[in-house]
């Protein structure tokens, strides 16, 4: 028998968690033996802990949603993709340029006309990017035909940029209605199934260039810009703004070699 040291609330918590050192355990048990109400309380704590485990155990066995697996692998993909293309050193520079473009633009809300363009790009992305069986009208296996066809319908030479350097492959494209004239969408996919779409329209009103502009609608992020006769909007609902910015830079550089 030892002299009874004061048993603290922290001791009782540790007792409920089964974390008391053996010597102390005996003392606390002795203390509890004389206090049935306290004993009942810590027993209830223990039981609640067990029940808590039981309630949430099933989550561990649930299949992991794709979006989470993609999020876990994201940066690794970027790093390897960039390294493969020897772009690591360039990355910083591109980032700076992208940031500058963003700064330059931090101006008024998009003009109504641009807002409608972004809106259409977002709707087109949200409609077709999740599509499993028919994501595109014409597949990448007929790229020459796809590009010729869209160029003809849009009334301007259109190109599908090659984005392998940032980890994305062309899936294909489709023709879409726009405000008064047809628009087009190219779809790209990375090896984990993440998709980005590039939405295009002819911007006959002006022969100008703008910096990248950024918008977000719901969970869809968009970079959009005008380059000579064409307006572009690059959308994604799965990748971060920074990653999307990198893809936008790659698109821009492909189209302006």
């Amino acid at each position, binding site marked *: 028998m030892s002299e009874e040291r004061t048993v603290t609330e*922290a001791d009782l918590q540790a007792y409920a968690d089964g*974390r008391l050192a053996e010597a102390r355990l005996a003392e606390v048990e002795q203390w509890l033996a004389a206090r049935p109400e306290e004993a009942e309380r810590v027993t209830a704590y223990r039981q*609640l802990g067990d029940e808590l485990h039981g309630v949430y155990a099933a*989550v*561990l066995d649930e299949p992991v949603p794709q979006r*989470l697996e993609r999020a*876990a692998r*994201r940066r690794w993909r970027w790093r390897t993709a960039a390294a493969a293309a020897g772009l690591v050193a360039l990355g910083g520079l591109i980032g700076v340029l992208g940031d500058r473009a963003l700064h330059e633009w931090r101006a008024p809300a998009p003009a109504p006309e641009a807002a409608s363009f972004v809106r259409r790009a977002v709707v087109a992305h949200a409609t077709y990017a999740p599509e499993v069986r028919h994501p595109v009208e014409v597949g990448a296996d007929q790229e020459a035909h796809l590009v010729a066809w869209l160029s003809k319908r849009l009334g301007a030479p259109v190109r599908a940029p090659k984005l392998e350097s940032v980890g994305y492959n062309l899936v294909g494209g489709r023709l879409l209605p726009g405000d008064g004239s047809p628009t087009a969408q190219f779809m790209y996919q990375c090896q984990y199934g993440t998709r980005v779409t590039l939405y295009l329209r002819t911007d006959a009103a002006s022969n100008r260039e703008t910096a990248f502009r950024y918008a977000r609608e719901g969970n869809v992020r968009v970079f959009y810009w005008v380059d000579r006769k064409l307006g572009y909007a690059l959308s994604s609902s799965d990748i971060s703004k920074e990653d999307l910015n990198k893809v936008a830079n790659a698109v821009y550089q492909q189209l302006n070699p």
Partner: protein
Amino acid sequence: MSDAERLVELIPRLRRYARALVGDRASADDLVQDTLERAWAKLHLYSRGTDLRAWLFTVMHNVHVNKLRASRATDPLEDEMPELAQRAPQGDALLVRDLERAIGRLPSEQREVLLLVTLEEMSYDEAARTLDIPIGTVMSRLSRAREKLRAMMTGQAAAKLKVVK
């Protein structure tokens, strides 16, 4: 093993904790996704060789607190999670729903401590470092969380008995 593979391996643990923390599945998975994205953005702050799991829980805690703050800015009452969807409870399901609800009614900071210690089985010291609070605060929050939970669960039992009478 690459960082990505280790992260993927930890997803089920993060999801379980997030589910208990915020209640519904979609919001919980949103929290996990935001956590993973933030983890990548902050990976340079992670010191190699230390416990990646504990570090991720710290990241999740920060993301969660920021989200709470943002939602409080719009709705000052948004401290507790919304009522969970009503299902027809039977047998164990009744306990599950009651316990989930009771956990949802705990103040967020007490809920976090309780879940890290009981569900994640972190030591008090690990929980303190994860949440960046003193160990004494861990102990007092744990004690308060448990007592509230017990009161809620036994209160419910008492209420049911009364109805039966």
